[in-house]
Structure formats: C-alpha cells, structure tokens
C-alpha cells in the first residue's frame, strides 16, 4: 500500500472529507456537444461565500481541492479564489478548457503552486475539436495555453473525452500530448445533462466498441489483469463500500449545494444555509450513502463482478436507486471480461442494454435551494 492510499483509507475510515470537487461556475465560453450543464447563472456563490466555504473546508480536514466548472476563468475572481485556497494550504487542481489562459495567467498559476491543470482536448485535428466545442479557434487557443503552462514548469494533463464523433482520435491526442511533453488521460464517460436530457448519451461510445479500447495496450496497462474474469466475492468483500463518495469525498456546486459526488446528484444540503461540517456529518442523505455495503445492493450483491466492477452509485442513483446496478458499469464489466452480469441475467439479456437506447428515466441534478 502506498503512503497516499494509506492516508486515503484512514480518511475513509474516519469519515474525513479528504477531497472536495468544487464547481465555481456553470457558465462557459464553449458549448460542447456532450456537455450536461445549464450554463445560465442562477445565483453563483460570491467571492466572500466561496472563501468562507474554503475556511470551513480547511477546518473540516479537506486536503485535495479540485476547482472546475463550467469554465473556471469565466469568473473574474477565479485566481483570487485560488490564491485564497493556496494560503489555506490546499493541494489545488484546476480543470479548464484553458482558452482564457495566456502567459500572464500561466505565470500566476505557477506562482500559486497549483498542483495540476487538467485541460480538455477532444482531438488532435483542430476542425474536430472546434466542432465539438462549437468555439472557433478553440483548439489553437487551448494548445497555446498548454504550452504556456508547460513552459512555466507546471504539471499539465490533457483529458480526452471519447465519444462517437472523436472515437478514432485518441491515439492522435495521445501523440500530441507526448509531443507537448504533458500527461494524457482518457475519459470514455458521458454524463446525462443536468436537466435529465439523455440525448447526450447517444454520443457515448457504444458498448460493442469498448473491447477495442479496453484491449488497446496504448490505453490500458496490464490488460490481462484488467480483462480477467471476476473472482467470486468473499464475505469480507460484501461488507465493503463502493467508492469514496460521501465517505472521504464530496462535490459542491456553484450555488453551494453539497452532493456526495459530482456524478451523484443526491442533494444533501446547502452551505448558504448550513455549516459544511453539519451537512457532512449529520445530513440523513450523506449518512444513508455512507451506510451502504456491497451486501445491501439489490442486484449487484449477487453479481460475480461486484468486487471488480466500477459500479458508480451516482449513476445507479440516476437510474433510480443508489442501491441498484449502474447499466453503464454493467456494460463495461461485460465487455471487459465477456462474463454476463447479474443485471443482464435477471433481464434475460445476452448483452447489456445500452442506457442511451433504454430510454430509462434519469433523475436530475438541480439547484436545491432556489437561489436568491
């Protein structure tokens, strides 16, 4: 066990929110085809509200802080917020499309000792990238920013969201990242829109194509292990919990709403009305999320994949039950190993039903408290 995972386990066991993802705005200068956000400002937290929240998060023990959006630089006070966070000694990571980062911003980010900047790049072909972001010249501006940040000695990661329209481009983006001397990460997940519109799911890579990604040695290390058939769960496994959501991690929206995770739209409280720690420790919803063990899962507890599956309780919640299966992860488990899942077997399916085609109603993430 590495020191980092030991610390992660300790925070999990103690119920300390070690990491928080905070979206500072949902506004954006791009209009990506796959984006699930409502970009209108429904009353974002002010600078003072955010800095107050940061004080509370530091007191609560939060160490890893990710700022994301929307596009973070749509807030003119964004670097002021980062500066405040760094004075409180958070480890800060920024997710951005970087089109507003020039030399001056890059220098400031380095002066603030930001840990990592993760930048979305959809293709190595400018016309494909720009067609996805719907912002002309966004590829050029983003790549220039990658260079500015890299030249400052900052750690930059290019995040490549894969969908049908750019599924052939991952090797091109990977090569581009290598040429630029920055890291590369792949993200084949597309999340439903916040208003519950599932049409974006049609952009998701079809399950049948997942094996070619999972078995591509350039994208997946140690494939034999990754694609091995699942081992049957032990009793101890069934007492385990799913992921860090609500245990040592949570998400805060630009309106101050607190959720177990950015992909788990279960409202648990609002920091404009309650102290963060009161929500974290005492919200009935947070407590419920924390109580769920593998043996409590309705379908998954009898699934052979249960210990190795990437089952996301947030996606399961969006499908109707946080204790139920997540069809997206069933797809991944099946196409990774070829072994049928309990969810397929109970429905008598020979291959998983794709969420995009199932028409399943999805629960939505919404501002919880009507903003003033």
């Amino acid at each position, binding site marked *: 066990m590495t020191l980092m995972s030991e*610390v992660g386990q300790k925070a999990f066991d*103690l119920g*300390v929110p070690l990491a928080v993802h905070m979206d500072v705005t949902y506004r954006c200068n791009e209009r990506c085809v796959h984006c699930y956000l409502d970009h209108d400002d429904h009353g974002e937290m002010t600078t003072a509200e955010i800095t107050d929240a940061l004080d509370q998060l530091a007191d609560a023990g939060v*160490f890893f802080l990710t700022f994301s959006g929307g596009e973070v630089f749509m807030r003119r006070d964004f670097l002021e917020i980062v500066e405040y966070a760094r004075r409180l*000694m958070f*480890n*800060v990571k920024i997710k951005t499309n970087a089109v507003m980062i020039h030399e001056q911003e890059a220098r400031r980010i380095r002066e603030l*000792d930001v*840990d990592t900047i993760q930048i979305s790049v959809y293709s190595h072909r400018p016309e494909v990238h720009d067609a996805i972001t719907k912002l002309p010249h966004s590829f050029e501006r983003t790549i220039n920013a990658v260079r500015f940040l890299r030249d400052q000695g900052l750690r930059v990661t290019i995040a490549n969201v894969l969908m049908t329209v750019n599924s052939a481009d991952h090797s091109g983006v990977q090569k581009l990242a290598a040429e630029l001397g920055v890291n590369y990460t792949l993200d084949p997940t597309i999340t439903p829109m916040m208003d519950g519109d599932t049409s974006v799911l049609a952009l998701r890579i079809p399950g049948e194509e997942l094996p070619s990604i999972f078995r591509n040695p350039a994208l997946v290390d140690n494939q034999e292990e990754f694609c091995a058939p699942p081992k049957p769960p032990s009793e101890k496994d069934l007492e385990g919990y799913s992921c860090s959501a609500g245990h040592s991690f949570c998400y805060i929206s630009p309106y101050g709403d607190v959720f177990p995770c950015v992909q788990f739209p279960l409202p648990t409280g609002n920091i404009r009305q309650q102290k963060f720690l009161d929500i974290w420790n005492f919200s009935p919803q947070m407590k419920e999320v924390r109580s769920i063990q593998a043996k409590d899962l309705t379908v998954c507890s009898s699934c052979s994949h249960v210990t190795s599956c990437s089952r996301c309780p947030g996606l399961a919640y969006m499908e109707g039950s946080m204790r139920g299966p997540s069809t997206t992860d069933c797809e991944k488990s099946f196409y990774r190993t070829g072994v049928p899942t309990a969810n397929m077997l109970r429905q008598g399916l020979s291959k998983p039903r794709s969420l995009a085609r199932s028409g399943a109603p999805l629960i939505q993430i919404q501002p919880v408290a009507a903003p003033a």
Partner: protein
Amino acid sequence: MSENPIYVARNSAIAARALAGEMMVMNSADSTFFTLNEVATVIFQAADGRTPLREIVRDRVCKQFEVDLAEAEADAEQLVSELSQHGILITSNQPLPSETSR
C-alpha cells in the same frame, strides 16, 4: 542547540493538512508526499516565522510530549534541517514572513 535563534516558517509552495493529528504534506514541485509524525506536526503548525524554534520546543513540544528539553531541542534542530532539505520548512536566523494562514 546553537546560540543564534532559529526561526522557522512553512514553505508557502507546499500543501498541508492535519489528518488525525498527523500532517500530510505535498510538494507539488516534485510530487513528493509525506506525513509528519506528531512531534513534527506540532513544530510545523507552530512554524509561523516569528517564534524561535527554542520557544516552540519549550512551550509546545515539551509540554505536549513530556520530553527532556535539551534532548528535544537537539532532535528538533535535526528535524527542522531535514524538513528544510525537503522544501517543507524555511529556516533563518532572522524572523521570516509567513504566507500561509495555518
């Protein structure tokens, strides 16, 4: 312990937070991650750039851990020198500005 006072301040370039009494420290420049033991955590938390190390040892370390002053001073000097080699603390014979709020 050396005659000249030693002032210690936290390096503002690092990230740090206490978890169950032990400080987690991350140096983003070289991606190193440490945890400090309880004694080191006390010194780190008291390293405001203005309080001499000797005072930190006398008023915090000795009181909390019931250790002998002379021994604790020698250990603290060595610890501080190690932590400054890792870029976690900055030391000086003059008071230092503190850029971190905790």
